[in-house]
């Protein structure tokens, strides 16, 4: 049986769920199909930057995150050899603190918000194909649920929000419009009792690390290096590699703090992937989040980028509904995404190469901050004045 929706969104992670939420709030009939179970955990650095928190605030979703005892982060600390720089998060763009919620909380919250707005969210559904009309326009998706029962959905717009290995992107043949020149590998785990309350970033030649306080008193601690070095030096003993890399990146002062806390029982590794920007739209389809754009995790901006895409796409869908041509509007979506993503892409690509020394990395971080600031302004308006939409 074929179901009819205005929009089908493939993927219920932040990009997909947020897109569904915003489109449903515009009165569209939206169906979200997600392969995983509700609230499943996933690989993530958790950190929401200001643009991400501003989006959640604007959509009225920050309160539940705060209510889930997600620690408020009010300072960022940058550690360089022999020097530490502290930056306080002052109120701006409707944000007076940053948050790094566990994905089990954030993803569930966004999906529930989408449902509350009128979207239908189905878990355990795998999309395997797309439907097209005679002109080649995408007209819906096909797949199956956990019981292998077929699923067929017809829609005006199909949104691929199914991550870096996006089925939708592959099936529409979305080409990469840009691919990065370097990639970084990271290993991370959750520490207890580390007493970290700020975002802490560490940079030393050849290595970097981050400490991100998240829910339940845990701190996500990652250590990173170039994918090349990772492959050459770090294979095999993941824990040993992790601790060695952490020591390289943080120096003696920070590593002294670690033994006093409880080391993670499990570690997660990410061997690296080149950043890319994909063609993000076509007749009847669009891509959001990692499906359309992946930037090295060193940016710690992945979730924020996903929420940004949702906001930008929903703006253009609203434009289409008010009479702007579909092709023109979707092209505008991609143009705006690229305009905001490119400066971040450029900087992070250099960061991920680990060919910098300390003065160079400080310069790169200056540019990264400038790009983040431009992203916040593009999403919240100049002067960073945010009003809540409910």
């Amino acid at each position, binding site marked *: 049986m074929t179901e009819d929706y205005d929009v089908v969104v493939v993927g219920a992670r932040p990009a997909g769920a947020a897109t569904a939420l915003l489109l449903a709030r515009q009165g569209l009939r939206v169906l979200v199909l997600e392969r995983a179970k509700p609230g499943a955990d996933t690989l993530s650095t958790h950190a929401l930057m200001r643009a991400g928190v501003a989006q959640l605030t604007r959509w009225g979703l920050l309160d539940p995150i705060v209510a889930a005892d997600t620690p408020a982060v009010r300072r960022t600390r940058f550690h360089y050899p022999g020097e530490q*720089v502290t930056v306080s998060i002052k109120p701006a763009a409707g944000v007076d603190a940053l948050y790094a919620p566990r994905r089990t909380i954030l993803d569930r919250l966004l999906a529930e918000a989408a449902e509350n707005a009128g979207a239908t969210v189905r878990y355990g559904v795998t999309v395997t194909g797309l439907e097209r009309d005679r002109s080649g326009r995408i007209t819906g998706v096909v797949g199956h649920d956990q019981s292998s029962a077929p699923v067929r959905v017809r829609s005006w717009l199909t949104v691929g929000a199914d991550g870096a290995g996006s089925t939708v992107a592959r099936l529409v043949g979305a080409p990469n419009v840009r691919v990065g020149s370097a990639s970084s590998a990271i290993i991370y785990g959750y520490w207890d009792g580390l007493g970290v309350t700020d975002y802490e970033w560490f940079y030393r030649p050849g290595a970097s690390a981050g400490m991100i306080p998240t829910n339940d008193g845990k701190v996500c601690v990652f250590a990173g290096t170039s994918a090349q070095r990772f492959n050459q030096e770090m294979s095999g003993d993941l824990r040993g590699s992790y601790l060695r890399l952490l020591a390289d990146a943080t120096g003696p002062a920070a590593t002294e703090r670690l033994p006093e806390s409880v080391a993670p029982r499990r570690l997660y590794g990410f061997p690296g992937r080149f950043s890319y920007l994909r063609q993000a739209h076509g007749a009847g389809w669009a891509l959001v989040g990692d499906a359309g754009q992946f930037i090295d995790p060193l940016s710690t901006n992945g979730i924020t980028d996903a929420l940004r895409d949702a906001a930008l796409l929903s703006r253009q869908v609203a434009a289409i509904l008010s009479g702007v041509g579909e092709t023109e509007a979707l092209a505008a979506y991609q143009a705006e995404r690229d305009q905001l993503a490119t400066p971040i892409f450029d900087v992070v690509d250099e960061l991920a190469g680990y060919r910098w020394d300390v003065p160079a990395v400080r310069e790169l971080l*200056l540019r990264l901050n400038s790009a983040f*600031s431009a992203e916040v302004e593009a999403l919240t308006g100049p002067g960073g004045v945010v009003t809540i939409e409910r």
Partner: protein
Amino acid sequence: MKKCVAVRLLGGFGVTVDTVAVPGTAWTRRQPITLVKLLALAPGRQLHREQVIAALWPNATVEEAAPRLHKAAHYARRVLGPDGVVLHRELVSLFPNVGTEVRIDAVEFDDLASEALKNEDVTAAGRAVDAYDGDLLPEDRYEEWAQGHRDRLRRTYLEVCRLAGRWSDLVEADPTDVRVGVALMRERAESGDHHSALRLFERLGRARQLELGAVPDAEALALRDALIGPTSQGAASQFLVGRRRERAALERVVEEAATGRGRAVLIAGAAGMGKSTLAAWLRERVVADGWRTGQGVVSAVEGAWPFAPVLDALADLARRHPTLLDGLNDRYRDDIDRALSGDAGNWAGQNASQRLFIAVAQLARLAAAGPGLLLIVEDVHDADDGTMRLLRYLVRSCRDERLVLLLTHRRQPTTDAFERIRNSLLGRSGALDLALPSLTQSETAALVAAQAPDLPDDVVEHIWSISGGVPFTVTELARSAVDGELRAPAEAVLGSLAPPTRAALERVALMGSTFDTDGFIAMSDLPEEQAFDCLDAALAVLVVERTLRGFRFRHPLIREALLDAVPPHRRAALHRSCARRLIEFGASPARIGHHLLAAGDTVAAVPFVLRAAQTEVAVGAFRDALSLVESILGAARDEELVAARTVRADALAAIGDPAALSAYREALAVADQRQARVLRARMGQLAVLSGDTDTAAAVLHGLEPDGGPDDSAVLLAHGALAYFTGDIDGARAAVADSLRADPAQGSALLQSNLVALRGLITHTRGEWNHTLRAELMRTRDDPGLATTVFDAHLCVAEYLLYGPTPYEDVIDLAQGLRRTAQSSGVLRAVAFARALAGEAELLAGNLDTAERELSTAVDLHREIGATAGEAHSLQRLAEVHLTRGHLRTATRLLRRALPLARSSVLAPHLIQRIYGTTVAAADSPETARAAINAAKAAMTQTDSCDFCAIMFEVPAAITCVRVGDLDAAREFLAAAERSSTLWEGTAWQAATLEARAHLVAAEGDAEQARQLRHRAADLFDDVAHPLDAARCRAG
């Protein structure tokens, strides 16, 4: 009949005796008034005399202060009558006679409020609110004894406001309460009272405007926009006609800057020539490309304090892009916030402007890290010295950034500071100079058409003929022509105003080019409703226009026309009234002081000007502080006189003015024993650095540690004296004792003195270069530290340069220092390292590199106001040109160096070197001889350093040989040989041998001369001076 006395303390001081107000002029001194105020606030109007002394003369002993107390009481009685202030045994009382009824408004308010709060009585709370006429003694804002009382009464007032539901009063008193403010604003807006609603918006903004990046509350902004629409300047392009050449030039600058070649642009033009319009056009133009922008104006408020226009531009930038600050180190942000608030606390000896400069440049870099940054500062011809130095620093430090710094200015009249920096910007910094000419006839017609499209041709022609093509005049004439009558520009605008409105605007214009509703109402001296009518009228005829924070005069010329209309005899009264209002608003002391001085009320200005000067010293605006403090020296008394003279001496010392020593003497003449300790320590330290060890010894004689807070300074001064009189062990012991006395070395002045002294000691022990690096690392978080250190090291560095250390090593050391200093933001150390590298390159014969390094060193030293370093670098740069044979250039540079060296604490070392090079750069033996004579006449006893003397004596000896005055040559040579023995193993032995070779040759012994030259060459080789060695071998 019972005597009735009423003392007013709320909103300002006043006394009424039996319904007759005591005139302000009856009080000729401040201490008697202070005594009365203090007693009025005391329980039962009575205090123990030691309590009074502790409050009024905290630094004096009871014995010292007792006569002052008696004197103050005596003068108070002369005004209030014999029972006014009574000293009986140990007690001091105000009107103690039971037959006198005394009412004190602050006490009455306190009683009413306490009763209301205790009983939670809303009606009584309302009465208490009505009884509060303003904060306690606003004129005594900086008096510690009043602070606690004021804060407590104010808190009580806010509580009774809340209890009484008097929200409007609450917001007026505490505009930081955004929630209440916005609710009230909404209430006013809904009731149709838009004026009050907008006024509340301004108040909410005013409370936060001194915080970098603070933006209006979103709800408040939305409400405001709903009432009057978003503030928009209107498209500048709409009113810009002509200027094709200028626009093309600006486009080129923007294109270049976008590739990372930052540049300054100076737009010059007479008043009304359209500078602001062109600036606004450029702003629109770059915003369209995604650039960030910020804008400040020099004359925004009268009596603003140093750096304000640049800080305003940055504050504007941060308001537009608040999230940029997510990348700004808290330390930098705090520095800028403190500077924005105009309250930098007291001077601790550090050159705080260096910190501010670095913070400002860092924020600019952050903003320029996107597509580009345009910073506009208007009317810089009126800017203070600090602002101009900061602007030049910004241009230099952002040369490789995507930055355009646009400065507009008039050509006449201008200040010296402005001309100096303008020339520097146009010279080495390569700024673009755009002078705006008058509009052509066709351009004038186009501008008329933009304003008034339907004017007949003959009127347009007439406007052209009388406007002179000045855009402002053209615009105003066109506007008036629409009304059927051509009037002079100012009259065209102001002529249509009703007399009360015009009179109100004349008063308001006195405050500055910007103001808000509260300021307008206060200055207009009109009832509120009438003031609002005037404001509406002024808005309607475009005399003023709205900004986000209030209003501004549409054009500086309009404000100037209003000010010109005020006759001189009315000005003083207006300034006084303006000052009074500003005191009520809690405005910055600099602004209040400015108006009190302009009113001729110097006595009243003293506390404000003093505070402003202290703040300026604290942020490193020493010259501005000097001119301020000198304006009140004649009027300051007692403690304030001590403070004023101290500020003056500190500021003079900081800029290296030789008058600093006598300024300290003047401060000591009025200081009590405790105040004198730190003054003597500072003076002794300064005297040592000036080479005047006799004065230092005299001033430090008998000054010993006493367990007090100044011990560390005292010990260090003794240590410096010991070092410079050859007692190295004594110096080391003093350093150790000083560290024991104050392990943290709390003030930056102490830290810098300590580092300097340790540097000198370790150099003497042969460990200087290692220590220098170690000290830099240790002190990297305190940029202010470096100034004294490196000034002192200028001489120490000569050991390194003329000693056996290879130049490569010196250059390596300098580059390492520069990198470390740069990343730590220690500008003075960066400048020092540049100069050191330049010197080493010069002596190694790498003239191009030397020129580059030394030119940069000259600029850097000038920007941070380090005159010694600037003079030193100029002298070395002159040597580069001398070596190349560019005698004129060298002489020109030396002429620049000489006055700087004279005003520097290192004069004894620098003067001789400058004269030495001047002699060597003379283009004929006769000129050289004349230069020697001039040098001898100019060099006084204090201009000599035994070590550095050789830098003059060697060239002087050689020149005397050349002109045939062999006796004089022998004299100079003997002196040079004496000097060279002081520093064994340096190039100076070689230099004296070379000079002796000249003399011996002139005496006829060619062979001995040849041998001497070869020995000199070998010695020059030993210390790696290749150019000198080659010269000697060439004969």
